[in-house]
């Protein structure tokens, strides 16, 4: 396959970047999108040019590292997948592919296609956890959790914090991410101790980080590699409003 790539090159967060064009003549349709980048970087190395920086880790769709905005879509044209699960057979011979980093004020570009997603970590630290006693594990089924509840929690827990929701949202909103984290714990008995505090603190941190508000376009859910449902955003709204109305925190 012959491919023309237009890749965002940016030296660091303080330098403006630009799209740079690369020609690739010998691409196998069976390569993953990241392997195609490996080939390109190999060629750049041979030529003595600086390689393109991009995040990647597991290459099996579970780490959430491979953030690339490909041809106007988060993680490319394939729905329900990460960039590493995208293969060159999804494109045609002779295609031009534009690759950009996630664009959000809260996700500043570190270099080329790498962005700083520690804003998500800070949101998780604000309330995305539960308190458990250490010591021996409790007996299995000691805490009853109905199957339906376990499934809902698992659907939310699938979130890999990749940031595709933010990247795809016209407002760069992190609602689907925060909703997944809040939902995951809110429906389970283990999550009740911090339930009120969690919704209040995680939303406050989300706003502090500079993410946008939810316009309910649904783009996040479509582009989410784990297809996390908008139901969770509604639950986040419920959790947050309920927490604000009932908590003893009068200072806000």
């Amino acid at each position, binding site marked *: 396959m012959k491919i023309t790539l237009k890749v965002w090159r940016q030296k660091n967060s303080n330098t403006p970047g630009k799209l740079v064009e690369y020609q690739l003549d010998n691409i196998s349709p069976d390569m993953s999108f990241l392997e195609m980048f490996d080939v390109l970087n190999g060629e750049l190395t041979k030529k003595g040019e600086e390689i393109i920086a991009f995040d990647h880790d597991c290459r099996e769709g579970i780490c959430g590292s491979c953030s690339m905005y490909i041809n*106007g879509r988060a993680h490319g044209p394939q729905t329900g997948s990460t960039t590493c699960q995208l293969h060159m057979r999804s494109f045609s011979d002779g295609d031009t592919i534009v690759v950009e980093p996630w664009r*959000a*004020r809260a996700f500043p570009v570190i270099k080329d296609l790498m962005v700083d997603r520690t804003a998500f970590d800070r949101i998780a630290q604000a309330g995305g956890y539960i308190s458990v006693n250490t010591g021996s594990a409790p007996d299995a089924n000691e805490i009853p959790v109905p199957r339906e509840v376990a499934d809902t929690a698992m659907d939310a827990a699938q979130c890999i914090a990749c940031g595709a929701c933010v990247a795809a949202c016209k407002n*760069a909103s992190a609602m689907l991410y925060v909703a997944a984290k809040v939902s995951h714990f809110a429906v389970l008995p283990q999550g009740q101790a911090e339930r009120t505090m969690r919704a209040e603190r995680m939303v406050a941190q989300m706003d502090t980080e*500079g993410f946008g*508000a939810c316009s309910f376009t649904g783009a996040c859910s479509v582009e989410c590699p784990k297809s996390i449902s908008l139901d969770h955003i509604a639950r986040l709204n419920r959790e947050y*409003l309920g927490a604000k109305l009932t908590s003893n925190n009068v200072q*806000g």
Partner: protein
Amino acid sequence: MAWVTQTLSSSLGRKVIMSLTGLFLSSFLIVHVAGNLQLFKSDGGRAFNEYTYFMTHNPLIITISYLLYTSILVHALMSIVLTRHNQASRPVKYAYGRPEANSTWSSRNMGILGTVLFLFIVIHMRTFWYEMHFGSVPMAEYDGKQYKDLYAVVLEAFSQWWYVLLYVICMVALGYHLVHGFQSGFQSLGIRHKKYTPIIEFLGTFVFAILIPALFAAMPIYVFLQVHGII
């Protein structure tokens, strides 16, 4: 009270304000369209003029009307605050985007649609509301009682083809605004349930986005055709 202002100034709280004002405005549309159906009566405007008299003299309606004006302003001003915040959340735009692949046009253009509707409300209120309250409206007499003949103002306004066209276009914008806005309002309040969301979606699409704008658009068309003797 710090928690109240803090909650309402959060990104979720601002959407709650948009939701509550928006849904209140939607509920007003039902009253407005139902009342204005009097225009279809072939009684020379008597039912319509009696209805407008009631709407401008009933204390409860007058009180609610102030709530309505406030809601329009709060909804519009809050949308500006939200839009500015949302745009600032992505300072560098994508060089290449394909938003149509993952979302509907109306959901992405609520601000543009809302601006059209705001301008429409200004024009609409200038033509009818302002004339009714502050203008010189001719009088009509029914059973010895004097009524402002707003029906005459309606006939005059809708006898102009461009004014009718403006209304029809704005009602299309209303439909697109509500097809997303109505159900979105419930989402912002966290109201989403397997049993009730399909009902909300049905109402939002067929009643608020299609039926109500269609009835509103039919009014200027009907009056225009009648004034020009076509029907």
